[in-house]
C-alpha cells in the first residue's frame, strides 16, 4: 500500500476536511488500541479511504467527539466513533504493512523494513486471527506477485493483477451482504489497486533503475539507459492505462448506494485521484511523503 488515495485538498470544504480527518484519526486510534502505539506509524491514506467508503454505505449518522492524542497532545481533534469497519480497516492496514515490510527486508535487506517487520509481527498475528480467509487470499496473490517479479514479467497488466486482486479482496467486506454492492465494490477495488500499482511503478522508475529492482514498466518498454527519454516515451500509454482504470473506478462508484459523505467521496473520486495521477506523471509524486505518515493537517 502506498498512500496515493487522498482528497484534493483545495477543493474540499472545511467540514468535509474535518470529517476526513475524523476518519483518519479514528482509524489511527483503533490501530493504537488494538495493536500497540508503534503500529500507528503504519497507517496510510488508502486504508482510510477504504474505511470511509465502506462506512458511507450505511445511513447511520457520523458521530464522534473531540479528543486529545499522543501525536497531537496540544489540540483536541474530532475523532469518529469506531465500529466493525474501523476494526476491519485497522487489521487490513496491519496485515498489508507487515507483508510490505517483510518483502522489503527479504528483497533489499532494508534495515528500516527489517526492524518494522519484527516490530509488527505480534500485531500481524493478532490481525490474522481475526480475518484468516482474507489473509490466505492476500498471501496467495503475494506469492503470485513474487513469482512474476522473479520471472521478470514483461506485461504491465499482468504484473498489476495480483495487487489489484488484493485490493478487490479488501473492498469486499464480509458484512456487506448486498451482492450487487459487493460486485461493484470488488470492481472498484480491482481498478483502484491497478491504478496504485502502476502509478507506483512509474513513480519508482529512477529508483528502480539505480537499484536494479524489478519494474514492469522498465521491462515492457525495454529500458535503454536514458531515463528522461524513457519516461517521455512511456508517459502516453501509462497515462491511458491509469486514466482508464480511474474511469472504471468511477463507474463502479456510481453504482454504490452512498448514504453519506458524498461530497468528500466525490472529491476523492473525481479530483483527488486524477490530481495525484498528474502529479506523479509530472514527477512530483513524492512531495507529500512525510505528510502521509503524520496524517492530514500538518
Amino acid at each position, binding site marked *: 500500500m502506498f498512500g496515493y488515495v487522498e482528497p*484534493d485538498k*483545495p*477543493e474540499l470544504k472545511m467540514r468535509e476536511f474535518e470529517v476526513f480527518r475524523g476518519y483518519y484519526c479514528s482509524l489511527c486510534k483503533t490501530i493504537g488500541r488494538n495493536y500497540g502505539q508503534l503500529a500507528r506509524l503504519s497507517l496510510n491514506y488508502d486504508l482510510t479511504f477504504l474505511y470511509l467508503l465502506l462506512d458511507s454505505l450505511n445511513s447511520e449518522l457520523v458521530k464522534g467527539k473531540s479528543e486529545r492524542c499522543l501525536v497531537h497532545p496540544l489540540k483536541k481533534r474530532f475523532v469518529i466513533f469506531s465500529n466493525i469497519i474501523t476494526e476491519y480497516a485497522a487489521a487490513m492496514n496491519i496485515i498489508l504493512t507487515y507483508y510490505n515490510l517483510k518483502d522489503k527486508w527479504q528483497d533489499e535487506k532494508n534495515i528500516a523494513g527489517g526492524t518494522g517487520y519484527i516490530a509488527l509481527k505480534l500485531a500481524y498475528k493478532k490481525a490474522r486471527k481475526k480475518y484468516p480467509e482474507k489473509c490466505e487470499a492476500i498471501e496467495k496473490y503475494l506469492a503470485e506477485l513474487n513469482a512474476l517479479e522473479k520471472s521478470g514479467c514483461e*506485461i*504491465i*497488466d*499482468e504484473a498489476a*493483477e495480483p495487487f*489489484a486482486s488484493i485490493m478487490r479482496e479488501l473492498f469486499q467486506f464480509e458484512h456487506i451482504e448486498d451482492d*450487487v454492492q459487493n*460486485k*461493484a465494490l470488488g*470492481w472498484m477495488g*480491482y*481498478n483502484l489497486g*491497478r491504478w496504485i500499482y502502476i502509478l507506483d511503478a512509474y513513480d519508482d522508475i529512477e529508483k528502480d533503475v539505480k537499484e536494479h529492482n524489478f519494474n514492469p514498466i522498465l521491462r515492457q518498454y525495454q529500458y535503454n539507459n536514458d531515463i528522461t527519454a524513457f519516461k517521455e516515451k512511456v508517459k502516453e*500509454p501509462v497515462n*491511458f*492505462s491509469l*486514466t*482508464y*482504470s*480511474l*474511469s*472504471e473506478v*468511477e*463507474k*463502479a462508484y*456510481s*453504482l454504490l448506494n452512498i448514504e453519506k459523505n458524498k461530497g468528500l467521496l466525490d472529491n476523492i473520486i*473525481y*479530483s483527488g485521484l*486524477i*490530481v495525484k495521477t498528474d502529479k506523479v506523471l509530472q514527477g512530483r509524486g513524492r512531495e507529500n511523503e512525510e505528510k502521509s505518515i503524520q496524517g492530514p493537517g500538518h
Partner: protein
Amino acid sequence: MKKNPYKVLGIKEGASYDEIKRAYRELVKKYHPDRYRDNPLSDLAEEKMREINEAYETLMKNAGGAYQYQESYDQSYENSGSYKSSYSQQSQNQNQYQYQYQDESDLEYRIRNYINMGNLNEAQKLLDKMRNKGASWYYLQGLVFLRRGWYDRGFTNIQKAVNMDPSNFEYRNTLNNLHQQSAGYRQNYYYRNTYYRDPDMCNLCINLWCADSLCECLGGDLIGCC
C-alpha cells in the same frame, strides 16, 4: 418494495418539473449503456437505468395536473420513449451482429457469446485455439483483455485490429469509446474544478506585468518600480 422516486433521482420532494427533468437527463448520461459497454458491471447499470426510468415516469404521471404540466409531460414521455427505442435499437443491433456472425466461423460466434456472458476463461481458451489471427482475432482478444481489466493490452489489441481492418465500423467504434471514456473522466474533473478556469494569482502577476509593459511602450508607467 418500490423505492422512493425522488430518492432515485436524487432530488427533493416536490421538485419542479424542470428539476426532475434535469436530474433525469444527468442520470441517463451517467448510467447510459454506452458508458458501461465492455464492463463487467453493465447489468448493474442496466438495472439502475430501469429504476431511473420508472421513477421518472411515476413522477411525471403525478405531475400531470396543471395544463402546462400535462403538455410537457406528453413531450417528456415521448423523450423517455426515445431512450427506450434507442435501447431496443441497440438490442436489435446486437441481434444483427449475431446474425452476421453465423456467416463467420462458428468459433468467433461462440467467443462473443462467452464474452457477453462474462465467461472470460472459456473465451480465452477458444481464442488460443484459433490459428488464423486476423483483425477479428485481435479485436476479440482486445475485448477479453478489457473485460479482465487489462486495459493496456486491450487497447493495443484493438488498435491493431483497427490498423489491420480500418474500414470496420465496430472496431473503430470500440477504439473511440476507449479514448472517450478516459477523456470523459478527465473532463469531469476540469468541469468540477472551476479554479482552473478562473484567473489565479500567477495569472494576475503576469497580467499586471503585461499591462505595465504595454504602458511603458506607450510612454507611461503603471507600476513605478519596474
